């Protein structure tokens, strides 16, 4: 902020004070601020509380300055004539000479004693003029456009639009409803040529398939003739498109965005733990978008993870406990299913019982699972490993979202180690009772249906119909990741929080409650834990890494609790580009 000085010539001038800190003094709308050298004017204005309208500028991408929407008026001190010293006013600043023409704020950096006016006649009329030009060929598509409601063009039309068109000629027609990729639809008439998508595909996704063809008013966004926009990151282009030119096929015409409620939570498809926003209406998830977290996923997320939510609303969801009678699964209630379970497990020898848990479980669930194993007196507790290919960006090779948490809570470096011995035990018949929590062991863990038929008791808790459930004596309906609260630790050792966006279907229950109730049914103790916060409290008391934390303290962007040394490749890349000055964010 500004620092006033007296007329004392010994006192340092504001420019010297700022220079000592590597900062410069900038006057924005009449108030002096200090910013680090090299800050873009648009970022400086944002920090001063003025969000300048813009289309092409994105902090994570290079700045081409193509939309001209962020025009501001700029002023600099006069250049002193040779042999004269600059004149400083009473406040220690030089006089600002305002330029008669505007400059773009997104690609210019701030300088010492610079003045920026984000309002005023010149700036307002520039914005109005730019808006009128952008809307010349824009179709009247808003009622059918998926972007309506979150469209920058709509927002700025309200502030700077004319309300009617002075354009008397025929609008330029361009291709509409173009199929440019499996997940993205292009409408060229809506495009305002900001080139965000082109720069994203080139600079972040590393698959430069998009580009402009033609010139002037006929400029058209196109995909390379021999290629499709089929990158696993293609849906991010729809996110950053400020208008409705690129829209998602999956979300196309599903729901208007103004009906949707946003819930910040995290993705559970791999160890990165991408921060996401779940968009729901009523109890239906309509879409998932990435949420900015510069320590995890920047502003992006892979399509494969983003679209993996349709099972939540599917007909195959379990909605009530099922018990197998005469090779047929019949619906039952929780009390009788837990009683059956307890009756079989109570007398059983611990060594004949095994638990297969999941790396997709939250810390709280894993903690309760460990307690359950201790209650049953079994050493046979394992998670199911889930690996895939590391794509060098955001998708990690470890597809379990909470492997790090499992290592901490179960107190072992390899929580998957005992899976083989459990499988052998089931085959040889030494293991008689098997509890499978949140996993499909036939598909993912190499079990065979005939192996499972040998068991006395097979209990599975899962969200949807699966092959293991066919063999199970008891199937318990569990919650999907948008229906849970809890915490997970990602591969870099950052604890992050899942928030509940939707309610569970019918009689399904949260996983931690299922595990708690199984434990209680076996011990016969009275229920004393009712809140997931209390489970976290017990966890924090038991595992030192979680001490001093609780679910609300984790916050929406998480807290680092451990240094695993793992680097998210996309962030390494982004930091290098930032250091090189290519991007500002």
């Amino acid at each position, binding site marked *: 902020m500004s620092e006033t000085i007296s007329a004392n010539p010994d006192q340092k001038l504001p420019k010297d004070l700022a220079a000592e800190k590597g900062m410069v003094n900038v006057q924005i709308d009449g108030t002096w601020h200090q910013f680090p050298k090299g800050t873009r004017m648009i970022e400086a204005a944002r920090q001063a509380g003025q969000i300048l309208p813009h289309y092409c500028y994105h902090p994570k991408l290079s700045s081409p300055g193509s939309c001209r929407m962020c025009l501001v008026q700029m002023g600099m001190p006069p250049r002193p004539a040779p042999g004269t010293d600059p004149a400083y006013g009473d406040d220690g600043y030089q006089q600002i000479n305002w330029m008669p023409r505007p400059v773009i704020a997104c690609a210019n950096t701030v300088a010492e004693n610079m003045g920026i006016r984000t309002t005023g006649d010149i700036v307002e009329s520039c914005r109005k003029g730019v808006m009128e030009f952008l809307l010349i060929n824009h179709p*009247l598509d808003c*009622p*059918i456009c998926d972007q*309506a409601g979150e469209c920058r063009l709509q927002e700025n039309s309200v502030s700077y639009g004319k309300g009617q068109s002075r354009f008397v000629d*025929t609008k330029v027609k361009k291709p509409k409803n173009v199929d440019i990729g499996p997940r993205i639809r292009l409408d060229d008439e809506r495009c305002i040529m900001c080139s965000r998508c082109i720069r994203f595909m080139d600079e972040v996704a590393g698959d430069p398939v998009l580009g402009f063809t033609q010139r002037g008013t006929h400029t058209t966004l196109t995909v390379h003739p021999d290629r499709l926009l089929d990158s696993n990151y293609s849906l991010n282009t729809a996110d950053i498109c400020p208008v409705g030119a690129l829209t998602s096929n999956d979300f*196309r*015409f599903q*729901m208007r965005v103004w*009906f949707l409620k946003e819930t910040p939570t995290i993705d559970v498809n791999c160890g990165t733990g991408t921060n996401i926003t779940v968009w729901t209406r009523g109890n239906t998830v309509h879409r998932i978008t990435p949420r900015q977290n510069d320590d995890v996923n920047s502003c992006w997320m892979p399509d494969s993870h983003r679209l993996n939510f349709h099972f939540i609303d599917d007909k195959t969801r379990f909605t009530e406990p099922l018990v197998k009678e005469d090779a047929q699964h019949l619906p039952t209630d929780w009390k009788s299913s837990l009683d059956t379970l307890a009756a079989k497990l109570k007398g059983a020898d611990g060594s004949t019982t095994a638990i297969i848990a999941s790396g997709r479980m939250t810390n709280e669930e894993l903690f309760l699972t460990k307690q359950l194993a201790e209650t049953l007196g079994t050493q046979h507790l394992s998670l199911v490993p889930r690996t895939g290919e590391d794509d060098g960006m955001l998708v990690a090779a470890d597809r379990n979202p909470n492997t790090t948490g499992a290592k901490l809570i179960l107190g072992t470096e390899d929580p998957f180690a005992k899976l083989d011995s459990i499988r052998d035990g089931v085959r040889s018949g030494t293991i008689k009772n098997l509890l499978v929590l949140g996993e499909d062991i036939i598909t993912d863990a190499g079990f065979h249906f005939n192996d499972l038929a040998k068991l006395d008791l097979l209990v599975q808790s899962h969200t949807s119909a699966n092959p293991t459930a066919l063999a199970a004596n008891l199937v318990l309906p569990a919650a999907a990741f948008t229906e849970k609260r809890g915490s997970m630790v990602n591969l870099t050792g950052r604890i992050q929080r899942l928030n509940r966006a939707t309610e569970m279907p019918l009689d399904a229950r949260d996983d931690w409650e299922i595990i708690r109730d199984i434990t209680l049914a076996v011990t016969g103790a009275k229920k004393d834990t009712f809140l997931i916060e209390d489970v976290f409290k017990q966890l924090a008391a038991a595992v030192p890494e979680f001490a001093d934390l609780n679910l609300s303290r984790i916050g929406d962007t998480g807290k680092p609790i451990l240094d695993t040394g793992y680097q998210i490749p996309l962030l390494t890349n982004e930091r290098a580009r930032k250091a090189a000055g290519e991007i500002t964010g």
Partner: protein
Amino acid sequence: MAVVKVKRPKLGFGEKIYLGALAKGFLITLKHALKSLAGKSIGADSLKSSGMGVTMQFPETRWDDQLPEYYRGAPTLVTDEQGRERCVSCQLCEFICPPKAIKIKPGEIPTDDPWAKVEKRPQEFDIDMTRCIYCGMCEEVCPEQAIYLRKDYLITGLSRAAMVHDKKKLYEIGGVRTGLVNKWNELK
């Protein structure tokens, strides 16, 4: 502003016992009763009297031709001269509807349809007439001139389900409306 104190009027004895005023009222009533017996009620014709007094015998006799232009009856969907369903399911009416009577499921127009360029139309469009308050906001907010309040006011049904107007019923009541803005033509 100055406060004006209003004085209560002073009532005489006759006014205080109000028997005179009571008798006056009875006489007026009797006058009208006799008039209606003679078939001479005031305004009987304009109020569509069915004989005795001014009472209209609804539903045998209807008021329909007297409804003003701006009468707000059942909300309906309309088609235009070209037979195109005007609604593009932008869901603004669903958003604005104060009692949440409107429910729309948007859908895509198949590419082989003559109006494929419009891209979007409702798959399902339900208006729950037990909820509708006939406020006309849906008509006002519609950017496509697709929803209009018609003069139908006799909305009856034997069950709640029967009171929900689906897309077919809405187009049936709405019919064709001509002279609307046509922004989806070839030139656009």
